[in-house]
C-alpha cells in the first residue's frame, strides 16, 4: 500500500532561527548571552504540510514568492531536515534545484561533467560511458575545454540539465530551472521531461507560470505562507490560486 507512494510528506514543519541579526561570531554571542538577549525569533518556513504523491504522478507546486515552495523541494531532497513531522521518499531523486550547483568555475566543462556526476553519486566509469550523450544533448561540443567561469548562465544550465537527467530518476524535482535556457533548449528540456514522465518518473514541478503547471501537471499544491492552502486537481487549484491573486 505504502509502496504506491513516491513521496510522503507527513505533517512536516521546517523551522528557521531568524535571530534579528544572524549571530555568527563569538563576541556577539557572549554579549547577547550576558544581556539575555539571545532569543531566536522562530520562523516556520513550512507549517504542518502534508503531501502524498503516488508513483508516476506530476505535481505542480504554486504560490507567491516566499511561500515555501523551494523549502518544500529542499525538504524532499534531503537538504533540509524537518523540524517536526516526517518525509519519506521511495526511489532515486534527480534534484534540479539549481542547475550546475556543483560546478567549479576554474575547471573545464569536461572536468565539471565528472565532478557534477560525482555530486549526484555516479562513478567515473559510468560518466565516461554517458559523456558523449551529455555533450550531444547540451550541444556544447566546441566548449568542452573551456573553464566554466567563461560560460554564460544559459550554457551552464544546458550542461547541468543534461547531466542531471542522464539517468532515468524515479523522482524528478524541478525548480524553475528551465527559465534560463533559450527557447529551442526549453523545448528540448520539456521533451526530455515528457519522455521521462512516459517512463513512469514522478515529477515535482515549481513554476510561476500557471499555464505550464496546468499543461504538465495533473495535480497541484498551493502553498500560502508556509501552509498548504489547497491540494488536488491541477485545474481547480490553479484557478483558485489565480482567483485569490486577483482579489
Amino acid at each position, binding site marked *: 500500500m505504502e509502496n504506491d507512494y513516491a513521496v510522503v510528506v507527513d505533517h512536516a514543519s521546517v523551522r528557521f532561527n531568524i535571530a534579528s541579526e544572524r549571530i555568527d561570531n563569538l563576541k556577539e554571542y557572549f554579549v547577547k548571552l550576558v544581556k539575555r538577549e539571545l532569543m531566536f525569533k522562530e520562523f516556520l518556513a513550512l507549517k504542518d504540510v502534508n503531501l502524498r504523491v503516488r508513483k508516476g504522478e506530476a505535481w505542480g507546486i504554486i504560490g507567491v514568492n516566499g511561500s515555501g515552495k523551494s523549502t518544500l523541494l529542499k525538504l524532499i531532497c534531503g537538504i533540509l531536515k524537518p523540524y517536526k513531522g516526517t518525509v519519506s521518499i521511495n526511489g532515486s531523486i534527480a534534484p534540479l534545484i539549481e542547475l550546475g550547483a556543483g560546478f567549479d568555475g576554474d575547471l573545464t566543462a569536461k572536468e565539471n561533467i565528472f565532478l557534477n556526476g560525482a555530486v*549526484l553519486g555516479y*562513478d567515473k566509469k559510468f560518466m565516461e560511458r554517458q559523456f558523449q550523450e551529455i555533450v550531444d544533448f547540451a550541444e556544447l561540443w566546441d566548449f568542452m575545454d573551456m573553464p566554466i567561469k567563461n560560460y554564460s548562465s544559459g550554457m551552464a544550465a544546458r550542461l547541468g540539465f543534461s547531466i542531471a537527467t542522464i539517468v532515468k530518476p524515479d523522482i524528478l524535482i524541478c525548480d524553475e530551472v528551465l527559465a534560463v535556457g533559450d527557447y529551442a533548449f526549453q523545448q528540448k528540456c520539456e521533451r526530455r521531461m515528457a519522455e521521462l514522465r512516459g517512463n513512469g518518473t514522478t515529477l515535482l514541478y515549481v513554476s510561476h507560470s500557471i499555464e505550464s503547471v496546468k499543461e504538465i501537471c495533473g495535480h497541484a499544491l498551493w502553498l500560502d505562507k508556509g501552509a498548504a492552502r489547497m491540494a488536488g486537481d491541477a485545474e481547480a487549484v490553479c484557478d483558485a490560486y489565480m482567483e485569490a491573486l486577483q482579489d
Partner: protein
Amino acid sequence: MNKRMARLVTFRRYQPLLKQLVEKDIKLKYRRSFLGYVWSILNPLLIMIIMVLVFSSMFRFDIENFPVYLITGQTIFNFVSDATNQALFSITGNAALLKKTYVPKYIFTLSKVTSSLVNTLFSLGAMLIVLLVCRVRFNVFMLFIPVILLQTYLFCIGLGLLLAQATVFFRDVQYIYAAFLTAWMYLTPIFYPIGQLSFRLMWMIKHFNPLYAYITQLRQVVLEGAFPDPRLIFYGFVVAFLSLVIGTWVFLRNQDRFILYI
C-alpha cells in the same frame, strides 16, 4: 545499527565524489603555474634552505644533520597546518553546493585533508632530496613512514571535522585558530631540540602535543635508523582515534543545523 549501515552505504556511494574533489584540488593548485607539481617539492626545499641558513649562522643549535632534522619536522607540521586550515573552510566554502544538493557534508572536510595528504606525499620528494644530499643511509625502518603519516592523517581528519563545524557557527574560529597554529608551531620542536626547553615545558609538550609524537617517530626512523619507540606509536594512535571519534561525533551531531548558518 541500521543507521550506521546506511551511513556506510552512503559513504561508498560518494566515494567517486571524494576522489573527484581531491583530484580537483590537486589539479587546480598548480594550474597556470609554469613549474606545476614541481612546486610541491621545490617549495618545502626552498623554505628549508632558508631556515638552515638562518639557524646555522644566526642561531645555533647543537643538532646533528640539521637539514634532515628540520625537514622531517617541517613535513609533518606543514601537513597538519595545511590540512586543518583547509578543513576549517571546507563547509563554509561549499555553502552554495550544500544548499542545493544533498551530499554528505563530511565529504568536503575529508577531501581537503586527503588532498593535503597527497601534497605531503609529493613533498616527501623534497625530504628524499635532502636525505640524498646529506648522505643519510636508507634503512628498512623507513617502511614505517606510511604508518606515521596514517596516524597524522587520522588526527587531522578529527581535528578538521571539529574546526569545520565550529566555523559554521562562529566565524571567529578561523582567526583564533590562526593564532593557535603559530603558538603550536613554536611549541613543537621543529627547528630546536626538545632538550633545550625547561623540564616542565618539555613534559607538557611530550604529553599534550601529539605532533611531538609524530615528528619524533619520523626522526627516529630517518635520523637514528631505528624502529620508533612503541610508546610513541601507541600514544600517536590513541590521540588520532580520540580526535577522530570526538570530531566525527560533534560534526554529525551538529550537521543538520549547518544549513541554517551557511
